[in-house]
């Protein structure tokens, strides 16, 4: 072990491991150094210079985030020189920033605004540069709005797009005063490889990247008495929403959320978890069918491994990057789109409603879902299956606007028909959850026994490792699945598109032999989605994951096929998984896209 080193920060002596940055060392002694370009998810850039500190004896000031401590360093974080310089830097950033705060979507949740307020920048001494530049707002994407006039060039979004997602849609172009964050040939976000995952939004300190919001449209729909507005809530929303409304990260607010949605005036509040369970039924059966076609029929048309298709960010990624592998994708729609197709068919019929009068809204931890809902493929009900997609953040805004004291709400239950769910549906919100839910059902379907993991918790597919692997050996299957006897079902789970890319490369090179792979575009799965509360960090995502698994453990039913409403929908409407009706409503195909 290397010897610890001694340094002092503002006179407080501290012993730290060699290699610790000044920023981390300071936090150990309770000293907060402001940062902008620094983010726990990303590599260090050291370009905003807000975190400068003074090392006694050095003329130049040093970026705390990028500088490792050395033995005997005396560091000052609040000397006059540091204060004046830092104030200068904030002033410079503001001079280049379109500081029209009251008209900004991020007003109140902007790191630059916070710093300006902390340092009480009350005057505008420097020349305002923002109005002098010809900025345009890119509003063509259905998911993301990019406003360069609010960009502070910290490159957090670029590092996110490159390091976390491996997409490289965002990049730095030009130099000097012209330097900006843009895309290939400065095309619109809608026309490039952007997967709409929204991670750039989650990592943007200002309002330069925000979701395209549909709040007013949803208010209008609610107010329209001729419309019947149904809403669905994704699994990960219930463990994130609380953060926007005063709760600690990792607080489960399912019942309060349902109550709030009812107060907002939605006519029916139902659960995407229900269609998550339905996805398991369809996708699990599809997997087993594919296995049979490959192992028994030797059908060359059918491809393994089968890849999940719940994450629209992942779908767009594979369409751009690995279009030759599209036939590996499960044909199942995502739970959101299954719900949308059923809301205007099954639900409409059961409630005796004219589907044309139904407005289907979904609350998602995701911005890619906005794009997904707008895909031309998603009209199988005869109408647009999902009309509006709101992020967790947008829902929080609506709750605040409506004057709902969220903390004081009593828990309420989802409405019937498509509101019942199992623990298997809930864990869709965490990385590995779809895999775990699928295994719980598929294994039982094949063997008649529960999956051989303690308390149904399939630990190998849980956790925050980028790529996880698991295998389940099938022994003594039921008669109809005899061909699977002795087969070791090999699974992989990848979250964060950079990891998805790694797995895809290993498949392409032939070095991996999986049967089934779960892909999620965002780090941590949906709970770390691009529509979730800001800020995000590994710790926050961990807390949300714990909440998801706690929700699962707390449910009486934890296997999708046990869901009584699932049993009912197959009895009353769909007949059986992969029936003609499910093929029509619940399955789809994707298309090849250009790679730029």
């Amino acid at each position: 072990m290397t010897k610890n080193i001694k340094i002092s920060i503002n006179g407080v002596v501290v012993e730290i491991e060699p290699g610790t940055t000044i920023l981390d060392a300071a936090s150990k002694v309770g000293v907060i150094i402001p940062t902008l370009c620094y983010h726990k998810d990303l590599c260090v850039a050291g370009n905003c210079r807000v975190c400068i500190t003074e090392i006694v004896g050095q003329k130049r000031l040093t970026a705390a985030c990028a500088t490792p401590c050395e033995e005997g360093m005396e560091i000052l974080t609040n000397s006059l020189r540091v204060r004046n310089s830092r104030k200068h830097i904030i002033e410079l950033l503001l001079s280049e920033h379109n500081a029209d705060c009251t008209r900004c979507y991020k007003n109140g949740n902007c790191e630059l605004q916070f710093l300006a307020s902390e340092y009480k920048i009350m005057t505008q001494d420097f020349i305002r540069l923002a109005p002098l530049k010809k900025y345009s707002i890119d509003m063509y994407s259905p998911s993301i709005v990019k406003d360069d006039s609010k960009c502070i060039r910290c490159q957090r979004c670029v590092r996110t797009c490159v390091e976390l997602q491996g997409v490289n849609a965002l990049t730095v172009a030009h130099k000097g005063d012209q330097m900006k964050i843009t895309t290939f040939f400065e095309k619109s976000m809608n026309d490039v490889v952007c997967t709409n995952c929204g991670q750039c939004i989650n990592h943007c300190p200002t309002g330069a990247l925000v979701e395209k919001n549909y709040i007013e449209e949803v208010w209008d729909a609610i107010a329209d008495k001729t419309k019947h507005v149904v809403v669905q809530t994704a699994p990960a929303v219930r463990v994130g929403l609380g953060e926007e409304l005063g709760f600690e990260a990792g607080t489960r607010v399912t019942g309060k959320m349902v109550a709030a949605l009812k107060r907002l005036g939605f006519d029916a509040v139902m659960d995407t978890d229900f269609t998550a369970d339905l996805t398991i039924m369809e996708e699990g059966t599809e997997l087993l069918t594919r296995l049979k076609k490959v192992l028994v029929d030797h059908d060359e048309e059918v491809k393994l491994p089968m890849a999940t298709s719940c994450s629209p960010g992942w779908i767009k990624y594979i369409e751009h990057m690995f279009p030759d592998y599209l036939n590996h994708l499960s044909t199942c729609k995502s739970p959101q789109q299954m719900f949308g197709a059923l809301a205007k068919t099954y639900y409409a019929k059961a409630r005796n409603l004219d589907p044309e009068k139904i407005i289907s809204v979904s609350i998602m931890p995701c911005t890619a879902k906005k794009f997904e809902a707008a895909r031309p493929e998603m009209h199988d009900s005869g109408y647009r299956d999902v009309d509006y997609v709101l992020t967790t953040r947008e829902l929080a805004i609506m709750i605040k606007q409506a004057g709902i004291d969220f903390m004081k709400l009593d828990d309420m239950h989802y409405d019937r028909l498509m509101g019942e769910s199992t623990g298997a549906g809930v864990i869709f919100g965490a990385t590995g959850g779809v895999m775990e839910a699928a295994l719980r059902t598929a294994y039982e379907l094949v063997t008649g026994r529960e999956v051989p993991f303690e308390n149904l918790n399939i630990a190998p597919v849980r956790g925050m490792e980028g790529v996880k692997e698991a295998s389940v050996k099938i022994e003594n299957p039921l008669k109809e699945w005899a061909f699977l006897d002795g087969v070791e079902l090999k699974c992989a789970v990848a979250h964060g598109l950079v990891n998805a890319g790694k797995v895809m490369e290993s498949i392409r090179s032939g070095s991996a032999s999986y049967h089934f792979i779960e892909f999620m575009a965002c780090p941590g799965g949906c709970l770390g989605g691009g529509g979730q509360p800001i800020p995000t960090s590994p710790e926050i995502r961990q807390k949300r994951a714990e909440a998801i698994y706690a929700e699962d453990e707390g449910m009486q039913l934890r296997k999708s096929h046990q869901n009584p409403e699932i049993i009912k929908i197959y009895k009353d409407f769909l007949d059986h998984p992969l029936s003609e009706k499910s093929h029509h409503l619940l399955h789809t195909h994707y298309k090849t896209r250009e790679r730029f």
Partner: protein
Amino acid sequence: MTTNYQLKRVDFIFKNENDWEEVLSKNIERPSQELINELISSELKGRGGAGFPTGLKWKLSAEAVDEIKYVICNADEGEPGTFKDREILSRVPFKVLTAMAVCGHVIGAKEGYIYLRGEYFFLQPELNKAISEFEYYCKEINLDFKIKIFMGSGAYICGEETALFESMEGKRGEPRNKPPYPSSYGYMGKPTVINNVETLAHTFTIFKYGAKRFYDLGVQYSRGSKLFSVSGDTPKPGIYELELGMSLADFVDEFGDGDTKAVQVGGASGFLVPRKRFSETAIGFQGKLTGISLPTGGSMMLFNSSRSMFNVLDNYLEFFREESCGQCTPCRVGCQQLLKGIKAVKRGEKNAQYLDKLMRLAETMQYTAKCGLGQSVANSFSSIVENFREEMIY
């Protein structure tokens, strides 16, 4: 600086290079430590501008443990007012190639690169010819060392060593955080010696004649000779090799047109010296001047009384506004504010006291910018505004 205030012309750099084969074959037989000691005792400092002791640089890279190391010759000569490296590479390329190979021998590198400024594309054919001849000889003497040219694309910032690495790695040319330094983490993350063209040429002199010949030139802390690119209001613009330590007054006597108002020492990133300071200013590493500049030292621009110092500063800032990589806040926004600021003062849109605010801003840039570019904008800005404040306002 004590003695030697007269101007002394020297002729080392451009002296014939015909004996390069002998210098090479002799020196690669010498132990690495001996060559490093030779360099250290010569007190050669980097001629690119920053003035880092060359011997120490080689020593650090030699001590770094790695299978792969690199030698890079920084020929991204971009500082306004300098044009000496171009001459060295076209007139005595073998000196530079030889020095690179010796450096490779010293630190244990088998590959060298010349990072050639984009605008110097016309040097490429001749240089490539020299490289093939050089490599042919290396083969003959069983020396495993290859040299390649890497063409820059014209960004000033890529002369900054870590931005240069990024550029060579195919990335955007943006300076890295330091530490780690190139001697342990350079090109491709490997220990790298990166030297200016002229520095390498001087090491040739040192390896050929021994450290003493070099050390005997110049004055304390500023040993040896240096090439100066003389331009501006002078009857004899050109490249001159002079001993370090001369006074600026002597320099102006020699090169001025009799009406010299100020001299910009070290290019746009250097300092402007007004007439009243000529006699108290010496050119060398101690005397605050030459060498504090960024990519290329040795630029001497003379201005006579017909020149507006406002226009000069405006021109420099225009250059920095465009050539900043745009990465860090103080440099990207600071350059824009300084430029727009002096224009606003000139037009009367801001009062004269705004210049003081800009001076403080320049100081912040110097303290906080990520690399030498942003840090050195204050050099020319402050020295011009301080000395020619009236010209900025009226």
